[in-house]
C-alpha cells in the first residue's frame, strides 16, 4: 500500500511519450521530496521499462500505458501498466557483461539497467488481464516536517 498521495499518468504508448514520462517522474519525485540522484535512477529505470513496453510490447500498435508513482516511508514505488501481450521482464536473464562471448546470454540492456538502478522489480498480470510491472526504489525517510 502507498501511504502518500499517488500520482498517475495515462497516455498512449508512443516513443514520443517518453519525454512526458520522464517529466512526470521528475515532477512527482519533486513533490515527494526525493533527492536528485534517486530521482535520476528511477527516471532512467522507468524510461527503459516504458521503452520496452512501447517497442517490444505493443510493437508499434496503439495502446495505453499507465504509470503510477508514490512512496511508502522510505520506499518509492512505480507501477507501469499496459495492455500489450503478456510479458514478464523479471524472467529475462541478465546479461553478464564480464563473461566471454560464448557464455553470454542474449539479454536486454534496458531491463539490465532498470534492475541495476532499482532495489526491486516485480511483475503480475492484473485482474483485467494486462501487464503490471512494479519498480521499487529505496530513498531517505521523510522527516515529519516534510510530510507531503
Amino acid at each position, binding site marked *: 500500500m502507498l501511504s502518500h498521495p499517488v500520482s498517475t499518468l495515462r497516455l498512449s504508448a508512443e516513443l514520443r511519450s517518453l519525454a512526458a514520462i520522464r517529466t512526470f517522474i521528475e515532477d512527482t519525485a519533486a513533490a515527494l521530496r526525493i533527492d536528485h540522484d534517486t530521482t535520476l535512477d528511477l527516471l532512467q529505470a522507468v524510461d527503459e521499462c516504458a521503452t520496452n513496453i512501447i*517497442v517490444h510490447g505493443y510493437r508499434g500498435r496503439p495502446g495505453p500505458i499507465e504509470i503510477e508513482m508514490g512512496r511508502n516511508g522510505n520506499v518509492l514505488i512505480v507501477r507501469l501498466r499496459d495492455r500489450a501481450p503478456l510479458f514478464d521482464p523479471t524472467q529475462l536473464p541478465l*546479461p553478464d557483461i*564480464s563473461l566471454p562471448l560464448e557464455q553470454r546470454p*542474449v*539479454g*536486454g*540492456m*534496458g531491463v539490465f*539497467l532498470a534492475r*541495476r538502478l532499482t532495489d526491486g522489480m516485480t511483475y503480475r498480470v492484473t485482474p483485467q488481464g494486462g501487464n503490471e510491472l512494479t519498480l521499487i526504489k529505496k530513498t531517505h525517510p521523510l522527516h515529519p516536517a516534510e510530510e507531503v
Partner: protein
Amino acid sequence: MQIIIDRLVSRVPVTVLRIHGDLDGSNYHELIARAREVRSAGAEHLLIDMTNVPYMSSSGLVALHSIAMLMRGEEPPNPEHGWAAFHTISRDRSEVAGKQANVKLLNPQPKVDRTLHMTGMSEFFEVYTDMAEALASF
C-alpha cells in the same frame, strides 16, 4: 534533440557531432542517420560531443554502437531488432581488440558516463573531457 555538425582539422580532419538534448528511444535513429550522412560525405574520423546530453537511455548505446560500425564501413544491425542488436553489441565488444580508432566520445555527463560504464560500453570507446586532446588523439 538537436545535432550540430562541425568539421575541424587537427592532425587529420575530424567531424564533430554535437548533440543537444536527451538521447532516448524516440530519437536515437536520428543520430544514426546523421552519422550515416557524414560517413557517406567522406568523414573518416568522428567525435561525438555529449557535453549537452543530460540523459541517455540504452537506446543511445545502440546508436553509439551503430555509428562505430558505420565508421568502420560495416552495416549495423537493424535497431528495430532490439534484442538482436544488443547481442551484436556484446559480440562486437568482445571481438574487437582495443577501442574504436575512428569514433570517440567527448565529455559525457556523469549519468551518461555511468550508463556507459554499467553496460561495459566504456571499454568500447575512448572518452575525452578536453576537445583539443580529443582532436589530437585521431
